[in-house]
């Protein structure tokens, strides 16, 4: 069965984000780029499922030409194919993105998806709109579950798990299906050096996505970097005297007892 992981190129940032002077973007002049952690898991799962079920795994991204770098990361992880919906680098809103992705995913026929399982990150690391996967699924009329931390293929269905307080919800979806996955689903592999080298030579399919027009809109006005609250831990106490405070924390706030 064939899988596709939809990924996004995002800046690889530190604890503190610095904005460009026009407050429209993060200043990435000295930063590298990466894939959101959730999406790394999506690629890993896409590859594993395709490998286990005799299919191909594709990585798909909508973004600037440089997003090729992230697609190559996917190829280096041993995804079979990569497609870039190349934009001019402007920030696309979720509905536009979802429409373009759905177009690409629905294939030549325009209706039947060309894959059996479509994986999204639960939300992107940067804009975190929490909706692209759902909107793509709705457009393609696919069953969808977000927040997936467990996934098994079982005879034409995919059984997925989602963590809830005190337990795990289990869903069974008929294939083809789409999911939004979360970090913890798997341990994304590190690309081997040879695969990384080969990935640099692999070809990437490029398409020009259409930016659809929609009624009603949400528009970014500017970004703001709030004063960071990071910098120092909350000190619970010194030495063994701190233990009661630690127990309270573990029990009441973190709920790990």
């Amino acid at each position, binding site marked *: 069965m064939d899988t596709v992981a939809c990924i996004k190129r995002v800046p*690889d*940032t*530190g*604890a*503190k*984000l*610095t904005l460009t002077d026009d407050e429209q973007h993060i200043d990435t*002049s*000295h*930063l*590298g*780029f990466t894939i959101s952690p959730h999406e790394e898991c999506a690629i890993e799962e896409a590859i594993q499922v395709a490998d286990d079920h005799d299919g191909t795994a594709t990585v798909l991204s909508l973004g600037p030409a440089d997003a090729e*770098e992230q697609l190559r990361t996917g190829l280096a992880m041993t995804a079979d194919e990569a497609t870039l919906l190349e934009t001019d680098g402007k920030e696309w809103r979720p509905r536009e993105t979802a429409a373009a992705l759905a177009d690409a995913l629905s294939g030549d026929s325009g209706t039947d998806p060309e894959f059996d399982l479509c994986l999204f990150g639960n939300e992107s690391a940067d804009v975190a709109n929490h909706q692209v996967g759902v909107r793509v699924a709705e457009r393609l009329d696919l069953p969808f579950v977000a927040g997936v931390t467990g996934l098994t293929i079982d005879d034409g269905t995919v059984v997925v798990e989602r963590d809830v307080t005190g337990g795990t919800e289990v869903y069974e979806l008929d294939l083809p299906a789409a999911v939004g996955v979360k970090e913890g689903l798997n341990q994304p*592999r*590190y*690309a*081997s*050096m*040879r695969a*990384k*080298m080969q990935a*640099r030579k692999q070809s990437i399919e490029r398409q020009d996505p259409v930016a659809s027009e929609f009624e009603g809109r949400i528009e970014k006005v500017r970004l703001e970097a709030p004063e*960071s609250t*990071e910098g120092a831990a909350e000190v619970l106490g010194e030495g063994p005297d701190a233990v009661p405070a630690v127990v309270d924390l573990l029990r009441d706030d973190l709920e790990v007892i």
Partner: protein
Amino acid sequence: MSSNTLPAEAKTVIIGGGIVGNSLAYHLARMGREDIAIVDKGPLPDPGGSTGHASNFLMPVEHSKEMTHLTQRSIEQYKDMDTFNNSGGIEVARTDDRVEELKRRVQSAKAWGEPAELLTPEEVEDLVPYVNTDLIKAGFYSTGAGTCDPLRAGEVMRARADEYTNGGLHVSPNTEVLDLHVENGSIQAVETDRGTVTADEVVIAAGLWSPKIAEMAGVDIPLTPAVHQMVSVGPISFFEDYEGEISFPVVRDMDTQMYERQHGNDLEVGSYQHRPILWDVEDIPSIDEAPLSPTQPPLTDDAFEQSMADALEIVPELLDDPEAGIRHEIDGLLSQTPDGGPLLGPLQDVDGLWSCAAVWIKEAPAIGEAVAQWMTRGWSDIDLHGADVNRFYEYGNSRSFVKDRASEGFQKIYDIVHPAEQYQSARELRTSPFYEKQADLDAEFYEAAGWERPQWYESNSDLLDRYEDELAELQRPNEWDSRWWSPIILAEHLHTREHVSMIGDMGFSIFDFRGSDVVDYLERMAVGRVDVDVGKTVYTPILAENGGFVSDLTIARLGPEHYRVITGSAAGGSDRAWFGDHIPDDADVMMIDRSESLCTLGVWGPNARDMVDSVTEEDMSHDAFEPYTAQKITVGEVDAWAMRLSYIGEQGWEIYAPMGQGRRLWDVLWEAGQDHNVRPAGMGVYGTTGRLEKGYRLFGHELELDYNPAEAGLTFHGVKDADFIGKEAYAEAIDEENTATLCTLSVDDHAPEGGEHRFMLGNEPVLDQNGDVLVDDEGRRSYVTSAGTGPSVGKHLLMAYLPQSHAEEGQSLQVEYMGQQYPVTVEVAGSRPLFDPENDRIRS
């Protein structure tokens, strides 16, 4: 250790909490500094600089004696702190040229006293089973090499510093330096975001941020951040059976400029083969902004492509482990300087401000120790002159110079670098007024401290025919021996001894001293008596308190309260700092640097007097202008000043004139010389062939802190009455019998096994008849300090300090060069010239 209590004052503030800052703190504390503060903008133990991402291996053998000794001493320190793993290290050769280079490594290892041996590919495989030995021809095995943990070492050093100071060490991490306060040319305080610390002395040990900190005090530390690409691949199942950090020697794949080393169950693969990627220090993100650390930006993929291919070739089994992937990949930032060396010592424009920058992990503990010695007593056990931050003073601090040289130098890391190799970038930076004239004569220019100096002149190639017979046995058939060299040098030499030559400009550093206290001051600086008649010149050693050499130079008395000090170009910066630092606060002594305002032209040879006299207003006869005196003269229209002396042992003068009149000086003398068979001659004659025949010592080669004037044979001044720096040690050295003596040797046979004649270039170990390196009673090993051909004596000459037992004229010894041993004979024990021993020519 009080953590994060920034004191209001401290005797010493060290800016930077990496391995260098910690080492300094520890050694300063050990040497008695009681009140030390370390500040760093980052957290501890890893404040985010190069210390945090270094590959941490120490390969002690280098072609530089000082760097080798610094690494050896650092290994001792890491061992003492229980942070050293003696894994060994192997450099492998893929090419024949590299095999030769590895032989040279063994030669250096012997010279500097570090165990090492050549390995066959099979022997390499026994030690490192995962190396693809099909690719390699030989290995160089450094058994003493290993890896360290600099973060842990930093913790140990801070703890020890705290003990030595009884709690007087203040460590303030997460504290950013905002400004350095300087008043009246002295450092006053360090201003930080946590308050201001007043300080007597401040050391900038801030790694690649050092230039930024120095700028706060208006001074330069010339380095640039440069990328060293590194990845880590794992988990590798092969390593699963081996506990701990490292169980196999580090492998340096020299011809691809890469290394591979085990780290736990990972293999670290590092590269210096990629194009130079230099950063601007201003572009480095803060700790908060950086995803990893400020000095670990993401890997530039395209630059690493060939490195991956090469690594897969040399260690395929490990890298193709199906479970293994690239878990870590960075463009690691490190400090690159214009010549690849560290930047150490007092920054001469601000009293009390020191630089301790551009230091690798492998040298850091020893450099911390040596700089601490320098700070607390004025000299260090291991000579740091070659690493003096002042060596770029007033010419090599521009951003463009630093970037050009750093780019070029980056490509020399792991490369086979010939000892005479010249930089190609940022050239024609300092040119004398003779430059155009010399270029017209097809001069081959070499560079010294930025100055362009002719090494020889292609226009003299006709002299090769003239002296064909004399040169027959002195030609160098081997490409390596003759690289950066020409037989024309020898022909120029012979011409000079027969007729006359013009040599200039030597790129001297020239300092004038004036003032009512100038005699007392210089008397205290120099071994030789300087209170001489006006017009006299004094060649004298300058010593440190221990009697080791700080410099050797010429002092001329121009007036009752006016002296001129003339020193070599390379030592100019450090000499300037030494002299400047030693002017007492209350003394009436003014130091004026005239290096850029005066040019120097030497006219030497039997025809020199006739030639010069024909164009001077003054009487240049022997009686009117005695040897070792100086006078003002007028050459044609040019007001000049001349000293009658010669570093090549000939009749003649060093003539000094204002730069603006230099061209005229050249023209007048050149024209006059046409009737006297004048030729231009290069620094090959001045610095090597002429000098070696005369047994003259060169600072940085024969003269250094390791040896005293008695051993160097420079005690002709005796012990003067006046006090001077190093007097006690100097007097003692004269009284005691030498442990070693500087000798001149000659090569008996250039091809003892037949085949090509080979010519040593310097730094070769000197062996006894059994093939054992000579070692004196102080543990100092004998090696060739200078090597060069003496055409007038028809021999290839070597200088070396020999243990007293072997410092006997006529002794037969051996020298090892490129894996082969050559018979040599001691020609002279001591400073007597081999050529013209009575100096009749100078006095003629």
